[in-house]
């Protein structure tokens, strides 16, 4: 195995992250993948743009695209005439622009005085227009890693492309729902010299993006590409690295592959390769020439004032890593802090832990939420406000784990109902509690009169209550029943 050290490894990363905005970047459609029924919107062809046919490379691409037909599926809430490339783009989504500018500032970028939306030629049909709209919002930034500073060459705000529904002979079928979802593209300079550093960079950029609170989560919402070269050789682009953990291995193996080629005297051709699940790479396509970018003539440049930038700088989101450090200093163990971080619950934790037992809050926000999500409960209905309500109730009416989970289920399913109504509704009537208390006492007569009898009986009753009645109620009846027997 060739080690990266001394191999003259140069690596850069390109990260694409979908934003979790309400609307798409250039229209009012919902920015999400659709679960709705589709209808066939149209069938199209694409042509090379005039003047692009000079080089043999793009001519070949043109010939290939020429016979291709593209069919598009539309969705009632996630596509309109803008996605159909009929209506011109609307004004840029301010929410998305602001997030992109914040990310650029968090990565120490310069912000241009005017942002120009550009068109990047794409003729595989994944953009109905034949181009992707993209704008440079930040440049010449940097970030710190344990093994040195890495330059951020560009932060761009762009529209996501259509997703492929299926490929047929001579025809590709696309869904219009993903087209136009705001996407931030972050490209680093080739300043990465260690495989592990590549992962550090990707992780940190991911953390910065998540810190905005506006990055989508889940499968397919973030895509990582790598640029790898050794000893000043040609640059190879590796697309589709699925998991963060794969990055060091992919870099290492790709560098090794290039080294082997070089030692055999074979030239390393600049090409685009695809990352495989076992971290090897395979040939995907030749490197396309430098992307042709030309202005989006349907939009005016967007002026970015100094005051606006200053305002954004004053209001940059706190980094998740800083938040995690603060939470750790509050006495929670590292494992718990990490779980809160992974679950994106640091903010909720900090807010709730001010008033309630931090350990209980942490468990509720991590393992309880996870369990209920797994059950398919609409846990997002349990807002921070509702959680506050719940913990206030629990302070007075402590419930065991099962009871708390039941209460959380109830509060998610009935967002209007108060915890006290739900705890009762899902639980036992006073009579039922009294009957249960009597039954346990009669079964465990031997305990009566003994030291700690009350506590022992309480424990036994509560085990059978399963959270269907509060501890206070049980204790009340237990005391009454025991008193009656004296």
């Amino acid at each position, binding site marked *: 195995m060739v080690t990266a050290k001394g191999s003259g490894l140069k690596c850069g990363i390109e990260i694409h992250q979908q934003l979790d905005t309400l609307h798409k970047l250039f229209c009012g459609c919902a920015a999400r993948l659709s679960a709705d029924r589709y209808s066939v919107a149209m069938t199209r062809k*694409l042509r090379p*743009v005039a*003047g692009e046919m000079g080089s043999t490379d793009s001519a070949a691409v043109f010939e290939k695209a020429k016979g291709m037909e593209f069919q598009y599926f539309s969705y009632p809430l996630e596509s309109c005439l803008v996605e159909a490339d009929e209506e011109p783009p609307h004004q840029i989504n301010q929410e998305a622009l602001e997030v992109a500018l914040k990310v650029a500032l968090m990565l120490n970028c310069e912000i241009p005085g*005017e*942002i120009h939306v*550009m068109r990047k*030629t794409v003729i595989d049909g994944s953009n109905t227009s034949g181009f992707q709209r993209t704008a440079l919002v930040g440049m010449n930034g940097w970030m710190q890693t344990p093994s040195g500073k890495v330059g951020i060459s560009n932060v761009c705000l762009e529209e996501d492309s259509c997703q492929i529904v299926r490929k047929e002979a001579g025809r590709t079928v696309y869904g219009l729902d993903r087209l136009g979802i705001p996407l931030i593209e972050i490209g680093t300079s080739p300043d990465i010299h260690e495989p592990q550093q590549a992962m550090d960079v990707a992780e940190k950029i991911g953390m910065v993006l998540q810190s905005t609170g506006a990055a989508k989560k889940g499968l397919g919402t973030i895509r990582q590409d790598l640029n790898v070269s050794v000893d000043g050789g040609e640059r190879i682009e590796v697309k589709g690295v699925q998991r963060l953990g794969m990055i060091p291995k992919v870099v290492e193996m790709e560098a090794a592959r290039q080294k082997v080629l070089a030692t055999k005297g074979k030239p390393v051709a600049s090409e685009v390769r695809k990352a495989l699940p076992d971290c090897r790479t395979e040939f995907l396509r030749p490197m396309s020439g430098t992307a042709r970018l030309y202005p989006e003539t349907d939009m005016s440049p967007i*002026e970015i004032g100094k005051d606006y930038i200053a305002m954004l700088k004053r209001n940059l989101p706190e980094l998740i890593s800083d938040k995690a450090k603060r939470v750790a200093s509050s006495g929670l163990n590292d494992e718990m802090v990490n779980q809160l971080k992974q679950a994106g619950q640091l903010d909720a934790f900090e807010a709730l832990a001010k008033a309630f037992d931090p350990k209980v809050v942490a468990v509720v926000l991590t393992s309880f939420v996870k369990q209920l999500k797994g059950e398919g409960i609409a846990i997002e209905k349990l807002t921070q406000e509702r959680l506050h309500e719940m913990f206030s109730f629990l302070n007075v009416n402590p419930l065991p784990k099962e009871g708390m989970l039941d209460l959380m289920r109830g509060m998610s399913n009935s967002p209007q109902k108060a915890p006290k109504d739900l705890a009762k509704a899902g639980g036992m009537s006073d009579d039922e509690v009294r009957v249960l208390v009597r039954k346990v006492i009669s079964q465990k007569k031997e305990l009566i009169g003994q030291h700690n009898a009350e506590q022992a009986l309480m424990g036994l009753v509560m085990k059978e209550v399963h959270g269907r009645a509060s501890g206070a109620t049980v204790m009340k009846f237990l005391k009454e029943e025991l008193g009656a027997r004296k």
Partner: protein
Amino acid sequence: MESLFSSKGIKIGDKVRLSKGVVVYEGILMPSAGKREADSVVLKLPSGYNIGIVFGRGDTVERTPEQPKSAERRAAASFDKNKPQLTLIATGGTVASKIDYRTGGVSAAVDADSLLATVPELAKMANMKLVSPFMKMSEDMQSDDWKVLATEAANALNSGSEGVIITHGTDALGYTAAALSFMLKTPKPVVLTGSQKSIDRGSSDTAMNMICSAIAATSEMAEVGVCMHGTMNDDYCLFIRGTRVRKMNTVRRDAFRPVNDLPLAKIWPDGRIQRIHPEHARRGTGKALADTKFESKVALLKAYPGSDPSVMDFLVKKGIRGFVIEGMGLGHVPVNTEKSWLPSVKAAVQSGIPVVVCSQTIYGRVNEHVYSNLRALFHDAHAIGGEDMLAETAYVKLGWVLGHTKSMDKAREMMLANCAGEISDRTLPDTFLY
């Protein structure tokens, strides 16, 4: 700032180095795009992205020693005696434009070579002759421009061309199509086309519209018509009679639809033609004639609830010689109200100014009898019912008619007679929302 740049010999397209304190930007100087602050400079960075930079006091700029090379390429058009000759009359608009990759600007493609580079298929279909009498946005066109186009088309057809293609902005394309329908007596096709999506995008409708137009122009259909996308797909174009075509959508590529009529044909870019209309003029051998006499002092008005008819009286004083009113429904104008249009219509007609009434419903025929208000308008005030004519077509026709006669009776007779397919006495059910 401009003078600073020009004093250093810097022009658009030059590579420059711009320093703002320690920050240095290098890129190609771009033309300004739209409304911008006077002190901002647009650079194309090596990455291809454009950014705007506010150029302040103390900032410096210089031309770099190495400069980009112009990458303009041209395909030479060669003559082939086995192919038909077509004349392309370019008038401006989205369709005849090209992108300059150096500056990113879109400019008019007025020479045959750059046009053929845009749509290379045309050279395989015909020997293309290019004429460009003027370059205008279609909404800026006047009746004098229609006269020029009619004359140019007739000249082309009488000097060896098998057909004419006119590229045109789309907004007022319907008006020009109507005007040429009345002005031209042609034995060969005259095809107007345009583009809803400019050629600087891979999804442009330009090429398919041009190819289908060339097919129409070499076909047997000796009609003046518009040939543009028939659907949102890139499948076929509709060839629609020039007096019956209307732009029905601001943005869609299938915006041009026939009104109260069927399209002449569907035309596929692979050369297939499917006739839709039961009748059309066939290609002949006679001479093309341009009869361009035109009265430009005509007006198109809209009558709507609350509308003020004194606008008519005002225009009469301004010398307007004829009116087309877009009425409501069957042709109604406000009558039993303070702002009745009847007195103004009556006064106009009595002073020899014809008033034609069409409908703002767009589809359907006006009627003179169904309601008493209609009878008042047509029988008492002597307005002319525009039958199933498009209001825009009636407006153009009235100008052409008044260019040929000053007589009210003759004008009425001509307005009610079908000259160029603009009126029919039968309305087929399929024609609605075709």
